[in-house]
């Protein structure tokens, strides 16, 4: 008994020493004359959202390497990025820990990522608690935090602009045969909020949403869910967001039941449609910047080839995630150069507002900080595929 008690105290003391010692070691790494700008990225490289998360993490890694090869100059100093990536494993619960750790543990002033809507509030809270931390994310719920005086940026246009005013008109125009659709969304806040705004948008473009179904996000078999849609009542299905795997399962269930062969998606890549190309009629998906399946320019083609080679990926399985993420890192470096500082986040944020960058694709913010990057609608149809781009203003 005595030995146990002593061991307890001993273990705690030893643990304490280790903790302090290691802490001392890694906290003072910002030595040296040059500046190193710490960026933390948080994506889901495992779990349901991994299809996009892996591309997000890789493209930022590639951007950092490319920029560091040349360096960038801020207030006369040669600067490089130092990137630390965390896996939030498709679980928003991890975001709080990941973000806090990147901010207080790693010392990052810039956070990028968060590939699920629920992950954004904890990310922003962590940034605000410490202060002087910028957060950038492509995710829908980031829109709630974009303010002219806050260093938070959404890396794509708001859903209102890109989906309601851009994507839905483009898709309904490209697929005139689809007049009645059923809408399948996750049974969560984001799903319900998005459904409420998409229904009138479809109506304005002459498409009736006959049914909204909110399904258990933990479902894997959608036969019973799809079974809710009366046969012959729709000529297309709209699939909400979040996860190629779930979209694929919904499509399989609908095809099995012989409901429809037309699918309109949002927040899903081209892959579920391409993999079922011989079984479906039409498939539409929302694109940021460009899509690897239908590269419009040589810049996009070259990027995809280089990216796939660098990370040993099948180019046919790359999503539309890498292009913009890659470009935003360069844009961030430019904003630092313009602001003349790397650690005054508010100044860097001010420099980002109104900035635009012509990289692999085009990315831009208006003076209020709202995202105005062009978007695209990918369409797969029996006659082949294409990406229709549309500007955002």
């Amino acid at each position: 008994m005595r030995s146990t008690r002593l061991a307890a105290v001993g273990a705690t003391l030893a643990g304490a020493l280790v903790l302090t010692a290691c802490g001392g070691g890694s906290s003072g790494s910002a030595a040296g004359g040059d500046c190193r700008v710490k960026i933390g990225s948080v994506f889901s490289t495992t779990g349901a959202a991994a299809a996009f998360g892996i591309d997000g993490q890789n493209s930022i890694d590639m951007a950092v390497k490319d920029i560091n090869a040349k360096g960038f100059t801020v207030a006369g100093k040669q600067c490089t990025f130092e990137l630390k990536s965390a896996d939030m494993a498709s679980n928003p619960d991890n975001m709080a820990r990941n973000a806090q750790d990147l901010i207080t543990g790693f010392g990052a002033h810039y956070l990028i990522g968060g590939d699920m809507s629920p992950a954004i509030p904890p990310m922003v809270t962590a940034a605000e608690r410490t202060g002087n931390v910028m957060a950038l994310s492509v995710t829908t719920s980031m829109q709630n935090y974009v303010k002219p005086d806050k260093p938070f940026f959404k890396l794509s246009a708001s859903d209102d602009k890109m989906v309601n005013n851009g994507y839905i008109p483009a898709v309904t125009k490209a697929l005139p045969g689809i007049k009645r659709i059923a809408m399948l969304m996750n049974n969560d806040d984001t799903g319900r909020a998005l459904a409420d705004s998409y229904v009138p948008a479809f109506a304005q473009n002459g498409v009736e949403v006959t049914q909204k179904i909110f399904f258990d996000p933990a479902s894997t078999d959608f036969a019973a869910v799809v079974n809710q849609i009366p046969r012959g009542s729709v000529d297309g299905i709209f699939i909400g967001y979040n996860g190629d795997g779930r979209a694929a399962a919904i499509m399989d269930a609908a095809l099995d039941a012989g409901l429809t062969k037309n699918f309109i998606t949002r927040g899903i890549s081209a892959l579920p449609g391409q993999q079922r190309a011989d079984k479906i009629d039409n498939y539409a998906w929302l694109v940021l910047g460009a899509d690897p399946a239908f590269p419009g320019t040589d810049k996009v083609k070259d990027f995809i080839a280089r990216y796939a080679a660098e990370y040993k990926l099948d180019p046919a399985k790359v999503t539309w995630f890498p292009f913009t993420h890659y470009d935003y890192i360069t844009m961030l470096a430019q904003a630092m150069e313009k602001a003349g500082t790397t650690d005054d986040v508010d100044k860097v944020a001010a420099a980002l507002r109104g900035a635009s960058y012509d990289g692999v694709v085009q990315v831009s913010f208006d003076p209020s900080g709202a995202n105005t990057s062009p978007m695209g609608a990918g369409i797969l149809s029996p006659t082949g595929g294409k990406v229709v781009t549309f500007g955002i203003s």
Partner: protein
Amino acid sequence: MNVRGTSMRSKRTRQWGGVLVVGVVLFVLAAFVPENRVLLLNAFLAYGALVVGLDLLVGDLRMMPAGHAAFFGAGGYATVLLYQKAGLPLPVAGALAVLIVAALAALIGLPAVGRSSGFSFAIITFAFGELLIQLIANVPGFFGGSSGLTIDWGVGSDMPFDFSVYRYFSLWLVGVLVVVMLVVVAVRNSHLGLRMKAVRADENGTRGLGFNPTTYKAIAFVLASMLAGLVGVFWAPMNGFISPDTLGVNQSILLLGMLIIGGVGRITGALVGVVLLVTLPAMFDVDPVLRTVLVGLLLAIVALLQPAGIVGGLAKLWTRLRRPKTPPPADGPVDAALEPAGAGR
């Protein structure tokens, strides 16, 4: 022998003393650890408190709840809801939250603990956790749904001593861990602890002595759940976010894993398990998937080769090493009882 004879009281003193020493060390650590290690310390403190509390069920009663994290999460949710939606001050919200957790634990515990098969207990507690998750996920308005709840506590307000929010909560979490350890030590040294030990050894035997084993299991269950809820009370505002996943079965399994790898039945075992499974992987930045692979493998191997856990194994080794010096007194037949073997007290 005579050491044991006089040891009851001094053993207790040592245990209380040990807890206090550990508490003081951790308190100093919490105040002075570098900023980039504060979160690591917080994770150690919170998981430490959870696992030490869980040991009241596993170590003392051999009950395996597969839903312990549900009470941790429930404590967190209740605090956040009472603080943010009802506008109560954080301490009041926390105190009420612990009571709510106790009520929940009693509600689910009373029907569950009486079941003789450990299987049913594990599964019922697990199912309860999943039901709570479903409840939360399907009431987005009040509970925040599957998106979780964000607590902006500490945004834009200054903490005492110029601490960061995280370090401020480190101090509270040290307090929580100390409270949990004190409760566990107090229970183990009390007559209640004696009764629990007896229930673990032989349920029917305790019935024969006039004790209802179900009562003691229920007491331990409610107590351990309250301690888990208490950790949640401080963890949720520290973390700034809580979602249904906090309550999930994966979390519960991880807690059991830490306890078993470290060693059940002793506080040191629980803490060593937390260091091995939470602190070290975070310090060495192990890829989470690889970490899970290793943790799983370690758990399986330890469970198989050393069911007493790492600390339990070391303790056994220690006694074996010491034994040759003082061979155990040969316990002759009844002579030992009727004719005193030792030299007396």
